[in-house]
């Protein structure tokens, strides 16, 4: 049954912005840790933190989805679909460019751009809904 009890959950914009910020910071920290932290368990933990912040992004988006009304839910699903289309088209295009000599990129960029594109769309939807 579709719920339309709550129009927009409180702190949803802050939640998305915080999750995106935490994801970027953890990713930067993980990238720097390869150079600055000696090999060992601490470096392994730091390297794995982006996976946790990625899960945090999923948790925030899922919580917002469950608490919103039906129209905003549809917009959230549209954000997911748009992100999938943009990321798949972008990665295919870059794969073709790699064949003609463009530098090879890590799969990390797909993840980074995917989350960023998704969260920017979510922020737009949530700002419009306030």
């Amino acid at each position, binding site marked *: *049954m*579709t719920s*339309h*009890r*709550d*129009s*927009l959950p409180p702190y949803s914009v802050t939640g998305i912005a915080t999750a995106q910020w935490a994801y970027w910071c953890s990713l930067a920290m993980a990238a720097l840790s390869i150079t600055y932290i000696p090999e060992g368990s601490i470096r392994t933990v730091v390297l794995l933190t982006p996976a946790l912040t990625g899960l945090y992004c999923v948790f925030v988006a899922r919580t917002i989805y469950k608490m*919103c*009304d*039906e*129209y*905003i839910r*549809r917009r959230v699903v549209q954000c997911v679909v748009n992100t999938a289309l943009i990321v798949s088209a972008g990665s295919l295009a870059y794969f073709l460019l790699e064949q003609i000599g463009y530098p090879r990129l890590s799969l990390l960029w797909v993840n980074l751009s995917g989350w960023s594109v998704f969260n920017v769309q979510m922020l737009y939807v949530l700002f*419009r*809904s306030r």
Partner: protein
Amino acid sequence: MKNSLRELRAEAGWTQAELADRLGVSRQTVNAIETERYEPSLSLAFSLSDLFKRPIEDLFKPQPRPRR
């Protein structure tokens, strides 16, 4: 699907925000229904019908599909 939500809301003298509050949805949802960008779920259609004390058929009118 055509709807007469805008007219009924104007008759009641409510703003979109007031109607959204009464229904427990966002103002954006009311706006999307009024401008026919979104067709509400059955439960929301029944809530609208309850609120305006009109049958659903008065609120929503199906448009005939164009023949191919």
